[in-house]
């Protein structure tokens, strides 16, 4: 088992839910990203999801799109991100790290993906590849890290089966029809779909998209094995990029952790 599987298993044993926090690497700069990753861990985050900036992030709402743009203006590439993860691993060896991004960026760095487990990365989430396709068909293969797939409210039952068979680590359930940072969660639909996913797989199902407040997280944690929070954190990071006063983010993450457990 790798770090991600160990962490999720451990939380399950303790009857706890996972808190996954997202940030875009290099927004506002890589030193700050590194600082924030440690702050995340100290504030009760179980898994860190690092957004790899791309010029055309079609699944992202305006908040995360702008963060991608800001990071790209600083010429952030996957190579820089991996170097930062190596630094993070000098003092943190157990918090799982998931890279989330778009196929074209990963294809262009297939050499890094091949070595990614040795570089401290635990899983890959490629937003724009259908979950039934195998990443190694696209030259990005590493059997030692997990492949996280998305399942959405519109995924047909036959495909849920194929996707779960092809996934490891956790299933990322997309709460809504929309881009990141949208609102309008339909709890009845979410509960039904997550229980449907559970019929096909025993790996944990975490819920993401549209989670803004600790009370959103609390409701979702009742049916999912954990929650993934992105846009609201990215928005808070941007708001304090000058002052670097991250106390509100710390408070917010602690509130989320309390809400789900």
């Amino acid at each position, binding site marked *: 088992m790798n770090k991600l599987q160990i962490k999720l298993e451990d939380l399950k044993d303790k009857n706890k839910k996972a808190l996954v926090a997202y940030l875009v690497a290099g927004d506002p700069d890589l030193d700050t990203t590194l600082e924030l990753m440690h702050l995340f861990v100290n504030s009760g985050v179980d898994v860190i999801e690092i957004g790899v900036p791309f010029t055309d992030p079609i699944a992202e709402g*305006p908040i995360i799109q702008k963060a991608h743009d800001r990071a790209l203006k600083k010429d952030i590439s996957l190579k820089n991100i991996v170097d930062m993860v190596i630094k993070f691993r000098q003092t943190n060896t157990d918090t799982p790290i998931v890279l989330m991004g778009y196929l074209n960026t990963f294809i262009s760095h297939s050499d890094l993906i091949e070595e990614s487990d040795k570089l401290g990365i635990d899983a890959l989430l490629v937003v724009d590849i259908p979950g039934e396709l195998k990443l190694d068909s696209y030259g990005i293969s590493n059997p030692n890290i997990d492949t996280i797939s998305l399942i959405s409210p519109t995924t047909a039952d036959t495909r849920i089966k194929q996707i779960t068979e092809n996934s490891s680590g956790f299933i990322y359930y997309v709460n809504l029809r929309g881009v990141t940072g949208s609102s309008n969660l339909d709890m009845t639909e979410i509960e039904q779909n997550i229980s449907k996913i559970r019929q096909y797989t025993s790996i944990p199902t975490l819920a993401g998209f549209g989670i803004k407040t600790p009370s959103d997280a609390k409701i979702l944690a009742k049916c999912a094995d954990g929650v993934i929070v992105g846009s609201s954190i990215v928005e808070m990071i941007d708001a304090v990029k000058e002052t670097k006063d991250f106390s509100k983010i710390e408070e917010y993450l602690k509130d989320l952790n309390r809400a789900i457990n």
Partner: protein
Amino acid sequence: MSNKENFPDVNGFFGEYGGKFVPETLMCALDELETTYNNLKDDPTFIKEFYKDLSHFVGRPSPLYFAQRLTEHYGGGNIWLKREDLNHTGAHKINNTVGQILLAKHMGKKRIIAETGAGQHGVATATVAARLGLECHIYMGAEDVRRQSLNVYRIKLLGAHVHPVDSGSATLKDALNEALRDWVTNVDDTYYIIGSVTGPHPYPMIVRDFNSVVGQELITQSNELFNKLPDAVVACVGGGSNAMGAFYPFIKEDDVRLIGVEAGGEGVETGEHAAPLNDGTPGVLHGARSYLMQDEAGQVKDTKSVSAGLDYPGVGPEHSWLKDIGRAEYVAVSDDEALKAFHEVTELEGIMPALETAHAFAYLPILMKELGPEANVVVNVSGRGDKDINTVAQIDGIEF
């Protein structure tokens, strides 16, 4: 005869190009579209409905016109013009939208979205949506909204909503991103009319098939007018829908040269252009794998072209495949060459081509030297140039 036209395969690939690389939420919509299209494409009632609209609403067939003075000007072979500029709304784009709106109708979708670059696809989409009384939203890069203000107003007059897109380079690529985001959000009731042979499967196939009426007519008209098939068919390539529509029925005819002309911008050698088939590498953008203008880190590069409709870093996957197997040739001409051709065709033939189309004409000086005096060359006049008058006037230093 060959079987090079029997693509895409069941997974939506033309060789190693194409596919469906989209966020999960859209997979069901693509499957639904593919099933609908496969059920309807050979249905005689659907075909009749489509061709009726092409005749009576679009005004097809478009003429194949002998360009007397252009032919004399080059002094080589005969130059024929396929007059897609004479279609209703002024470009080939209407062929595809007439077809896709029928699919939307059959699928019971109430809301139509589209992206547009030069605005011609936006106009064509707003036109067919108005005709059926459907709500219509057009995404357009803010930079293109500025360059193509006439078309923006036309779209609004047709009752559609125009959404300027500020992100990225604020051109066609960003309009496509935003249209995809709208579709992800409103997937249940919305039909996305993609305007080129780009995007995820089944779009490159559907758009090609609907626009192939151009090439089919060309075969009939060539036989009628000069008793054989043309020696070469020339078309501009941005996403590549006008070229694909003209090329597709000729793919199996190995003796017909198929020539796609990309936007060379400041010159391919400067890197400031929109010519991925000439100076790009395979990558994944907007749901398909195809040639792409990208840097070493896999980030999509900004493009440069005087023509908004060609200002796109990607290209339809079937073109990438035709390039690799050597069935079609892809060249590039610069902004300056295209502008020169725009004036030349306008003055010699009394036909003002779109700046996109002017790129196809701009390759004639080279092509006509290669071909003998008996050769018949068809230029696909993909659209008319009225929409570009402001751009050309500005370049010529004229203020209204």
